[in-house]
């Protein structure tokens, strides 16, 4: 288990991490969410010693991460970068070697990953000859070529087209199925909800919400009610009830124990009720609640 244990980090006057703590389990996919500047990248860099925390530490199975352990981790930085003029087959092999694989295994693994990511026929191409999306795939292959026990992926979905997004999601799911623990940051919350089991929402360097997505939704004290009358959104003013409007959806914010009977009666009074949905918060709602923006 990868544990972020009360990490603190300041850069001059800026507090990047302010006691961040959470765990990432093996074989699970964890979505690491937070507004820009919340400290996600800094926390991820702490895993690889790229940033040294002022206090706190990242541990693997309750031990500090030493070099041999770190070599079993995979990392895809937010700021993508590889050698532009190097052939991608050689490039991924090179990084596999740096991760400790022997020559033959490194080459085989590199070619297998590139084939799996539909780049089998480009193994001899230089990176700069590839499209942006394909370069991103090479970057992923680089991070995963040594079959890491933990993969730390900073914004892996950024800049991908829908097909790329699907490929990436499939790769993450199959990795997790094989036991790899995955931590990835993202701004695309719908996607995160779709892909990950666990979620950590951070703001100002602290974890605001930590847990399994389904559990967080289930235990949330808030419920959202969406009502349509005669096929149109029903926007009646209800005394003492807040409403939110997202993506054209008009929803009432209620307590999970709210009495729905009177509301249904009111709606039915205005016409035929064509939709009456009482649901737990979406991840977007949880995010907004957690960061209170």
């Amino acid at each position, binding site marked *: 288990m990868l544990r972020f244990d009360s990490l603190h980090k300041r850069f001059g006057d800026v507090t990047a991490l302010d006691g961040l703590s959470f765990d990432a389990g093996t074989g699970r996919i964890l979505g690491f969410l937070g507004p820009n500047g919340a400290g996600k990248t800094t926390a991820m860099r702490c895993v690889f010693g*790229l940033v040294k925390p002022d206090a706190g530490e990242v541990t693997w199975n309750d031990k500090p991460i030493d070099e041999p352990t*770190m070599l079993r981790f995979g990392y895809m930085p937010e700021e*993508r970068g590889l*050698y532009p003029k*190097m052939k991608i087959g050689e490039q991924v092999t090179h990084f596999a070697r740096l991760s400790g*694989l022997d020559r033959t295994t490194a080459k085989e693994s590199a070619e297998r990953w590139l084939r799996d990511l539909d780049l089998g026929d480009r193994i001899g191409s230089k990176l700069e000859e590839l499209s942006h999306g394909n370069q991103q795939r090479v970057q992923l292959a680089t991070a995963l070529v040594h079959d890491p026990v933990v993969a730390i992926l900073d914004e892996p979905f950024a800049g991908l087209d829908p097909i790329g997004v699907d490929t990436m999601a499939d790769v993450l799911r199959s990795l997790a199925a094989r036991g790899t623990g995955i931590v990835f940051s993202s701004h695309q919350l719908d996607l995160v909800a779709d892909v990950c089991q666990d979620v950590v929402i951070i703001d100002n360097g602290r974890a605001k919400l930590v847990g399994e997505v389904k559990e967080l939704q289930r235990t949330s004290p808030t419920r959202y009610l969406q009502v349509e009358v005669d096929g149109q959104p029903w926007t009646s003013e209800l005394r003492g009830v807040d409403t939110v409007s997202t993506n054209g959806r008009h929803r009432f914010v209620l307590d999970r124990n709210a009495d729905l009977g009177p509301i249904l009666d009111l709606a039915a009074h205005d016409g035929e009720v064509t939709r009456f949905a009482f649901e737990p918060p979406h991840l977007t709602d949880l995010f907004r609640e957690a960061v209170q923006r």
Partner: protein
Amino acid sequence: MTRTQRIFQLAKRDFTQRLRSRAFLFSMLLIIVLALAVGPLISLAEGSNKASVIALVGNQPNGSEAAIQQQADALDVSIELKRFTDLNTAQTALSNGDVAVVVNGTSELIYDKTSSIQLSAVITNGIATAQRQIEADNMGLSTAQVSTLLAPVQFSERTLTPNNTSQDNARQAAAFVALMLLYISILMFGQFVMMGVMEEKQTRVVEVVLSRVKPTDVLIGKVLGIGLLGLIQIVALGGALLFTVSTAHIANFDLGGIGIKVFGMLIMWYLLGYAFYSFMYGSLGATISRQEDMQGVAMLPVLLILPGFFFGQIALVDPSTTLARVTSLIPVWAPMVMAVRSTAGDVPLWEVLLSIALVLITTVLLIKLGGRIYRGAILQSGKKTKLRTAWRSASD
């Protein structure tokens, strides 16, 4: 895979990727071809030192030609005598450069632009000797008497300070070539290291590398890989020069005795000098992420090494002056000055060893210092990182 193996893996990448670059291969080939051309060029220049043609016009005493030739041989001057029927043709040949001097009867020596004391002496002494021979015959002197009378005075020569031998000439020339090669190679491959570090920062690949290898090891790997490339170039270049010069049969130049020693010296001081400067270059490269900023940052090592080039030239003239001795012990300059001193002259072994030790010690310090700057600067964003910022952030 051990730490060392990972460093070698990094070195291998830098080495092979650069070796495959056409620009590098082409420039290396060009330099070697140029180096190979040096020998034949020197031979050609030597060959132009051919015999001076002396044109004879009009009447000279009998036996003049033999006497002039004798004088020339005595003075070790290479001449060729040619008789012309009239003065005009002789003068035309003179202006064309086919003839060095025209002897007009016994009254006049005609040169094209500048006169030669040596040729004048050979000609006047020769003709005077022939004249005396005739006079002596007229006086009825016997052959034995004539030869006694005309016997040239023979001096042997010596100098108080030992004269430059052909090997000294070779040593000085070799020291100069070594100085040039060292200066150019250290700067060139040092800058390659700087460029390599800067490019890895610019393309941001360095973060991927650093998630697997420690910063100082990344720097060491790069220095090794590019250093090996430099070693190959200097071996090829030095070898080509050695080959071409020793096969060219150049007069006053005996390379055989010192060639291998100079070669070994060159390689050793390249390795030491390169190691010293490349870590400096590497750490400076980490402070920038744009090609445009390179020139300014690259100035520092150049300013440090440049005086060494001049001290090296001073040491070339006299390797035993105090200035040469002191500067050959200062690590920033030692790789050039000591290389020159031990090639051009004989340096006590302890001085060489002390110089090597000092360079090695400071290089180790530079690895630590440079490693820290590298570590502190390589992941900083922004155009340029101040050295102080890099130093401080590495302590975090």
